[in-house]
């Protein structure tokens, strides 16, 4: 079959079409990628293919020798392989829809958490794996390179990836706002709950290596130190004596009273202290925030910042899409000139909105 823009195809299953119970069944590990690519390209009649498998999606991008066959073969392939009818949970895009889907995906617009950056790395990895196995040719190479450029521009020119959207990363952002480089600073964790553990992990990933862990059960604290090399468990009774050297304090205990009083931190003078109070009822007296160089954030404060960041990202979606569209248009022009022969772009399978946007771009 003569290649046309409509031979560009994307077959997938993702968080918008299928629940996690089904997604986890079709997920492909990096080790299985080669055999999966081999099998999918054979079943779907693809001449080029890139397989993207993450916790939220399994999608294959490629050039189909027979798009109609590929569209029908995709759910059939999954059903045969996994023994469940996947037809209602799959989707297929062709032509310009494939291009726009990939570009928006790379920019994080189609992610569960809009604007997240992990997907970009995952697409790059999928592209590298498929290239190494010889499944990437001229068309998909250009398609993915264009997607990377479009995604980079959309992220750079909008607030789509601005701010963090989880409590842990928001706390890490604030810690960096106060201390800059975290590797020189000491973090103390009081109590060892799930959220506090995640928060410590975020701070650890940003460079905070000197970690002191105090828990009423010493063994639990000691157990936690195994997750963070260079961290140290300290007996619960002794944590106040480490306060002088602490820069970031995370409180997450079940205590019904305030653990920290103003007199405990008077000797710090001008040394800043960032306190993250994740406990309910609060472990830290909120009035301590009145002391200079003491910054207290409780779980509500952090949640509010995260929610605002989500709203801000969502507000940037339209602008990011506007940025992506010319890239998609440019790629389709290139495809039409260098790969496809017929039909012209105007007759492609675009929805009315896309046709309108593209005709606007043309004019």
């Amino acid at each position: 079959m003569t290649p046309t823009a409509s031979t560009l195809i994307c077959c997938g299953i993702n968080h918008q079409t299928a629940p996690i119970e089904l997604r986890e069944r079709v997920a492909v590990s990096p080790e299985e990628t080669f055999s999966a690519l081999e099998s999918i390209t054979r079943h779907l009649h693809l001449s080029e293919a890139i397989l993207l498998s993450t916790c939220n999606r399994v999608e294959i991008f490629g050039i189909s020798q027979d798009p109609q066959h590929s569209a029908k073969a995709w759910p059939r392939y999954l059903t045969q392989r996994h023994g469940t009818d996947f037809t209602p949970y799959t989707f297929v895009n062709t032509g310009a829809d494939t291009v726009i889907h990939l570009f928006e995906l790379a920019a994080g617009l189609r992610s569960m958490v809009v604007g997240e950056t992990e997907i970009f790395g995952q697409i790059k990895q999928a592209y590298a794996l498929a290239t190494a196995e010889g499944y990437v040719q001229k068309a998909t190479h250009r398609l993915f390179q264009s997607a990377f450029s479009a995604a980079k521009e959309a992220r750079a020119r909008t607030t789509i990836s601005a701010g963090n959207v989880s409590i842990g990363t928001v706390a890490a952002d604030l810690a960096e706002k106060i201390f800059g480089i975290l590797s020189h600073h000491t973090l103390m964790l009081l109590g060892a709950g799930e959220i506090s553990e995640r928060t410590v992990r975020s701070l650890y990933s940003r460079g905070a290596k000197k970690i002191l862990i105090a828990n009423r059960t010493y063994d639990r604290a000691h157990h936690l130190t195994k997750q963070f090399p260079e961290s140290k468990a300290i007996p619960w009774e002794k944590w106040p004596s480490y306060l002088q050297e602490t820069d970031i304090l995370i409180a997450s205990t079940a205590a019904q009273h305030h653990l920290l009083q103003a007199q405990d931190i008077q000797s710090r003078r001008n040394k800043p202290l960032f306190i993250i109070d994740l406990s309910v009822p609060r472990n830290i007296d909120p009035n301590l925030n009145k002391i200079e160089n003491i910054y207290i954030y409780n779980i509500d404060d952090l949640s509010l910042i995260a929610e605002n960041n989500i709203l801000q990202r969502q507000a940037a979606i339209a602008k990011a899409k506007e940025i992506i569209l010319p890239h998609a248009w440019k790629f389709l022009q290139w495809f039409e000139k260098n790969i496809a022969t017929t039909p012209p772009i105007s007759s492609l399978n675009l929805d009315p909105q896309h046709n309108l946007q593209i005709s606007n771009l043309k004019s």
Partner: protein
Amino acid sequence: MPERCWIYIATLATFLATLYAARKAYIRQAPIHSPTLRILLFIALIAQTTFLHLRGLSHGHCPTTNPFETLAFLNWASLLTYQLIGTPFRHSSIGLMTAPLATFINILALLMPLDYPTQYRIQGWMMELHIATTLLAYGILGLASMAALFYIIQQRILKRRLISHWLYTLPSIDSLITAQFRLHLIGTLCLFIGFSAGITHLIHTNTPPTIQFTTHIILVLAFIFLLLSNYFQWLPRKVIAATLIITYCITLATINWLQGFSTGL
């Protein structure tokens, strides 16, 4: 080309640098690391230097005969500081402060009727050294005050939890504290050298101290006291930052009058 045109060029360059930094900061939401910013401020420094050089040639001595020239000198000092010590030490955050400060001072100098001819009495090289070093010190202290202002703003935002995305474009509290201290230290050292040169000149010429001289001493002592307070933590950081800004504003407001001590006007 008339001398003043060089100040127009410098102002344009610093204004473009301000816009560029603000735009970058807004879009990227992170501190700026950009060679473009440095190049724009370098162009401004060249233009500012050319102006001072041409004025110096026409006067035959240090061009600080009127407020316009004084402000041009101050700007030159802050632009020079940016190029010399800004690069190794968080070039981005210093740049963020330098560009708007330089634009503001130059626009102020250009708009106000400050460039009038005056009778200037040449008082020897020691006094020229005093003037040049003191103005250089005030330029550096201007940047230290900017760092202090950013510190106060950011501290207030963090305390009140008024977190918005533009907060992340500012340098961290820690780097602002360090920037403020280092610039304050270098500025005070330059001020001390300049002031020593002035006193030496007075001793050599048997000139009696004037009221400007006394005011100058008070300001120098105030800067030294604030520096020591910062180092030994005698006062809370916010108080030091606010007092540094106030002291600098007083210096800036009285700089032309203080200059009478140096120029004998």
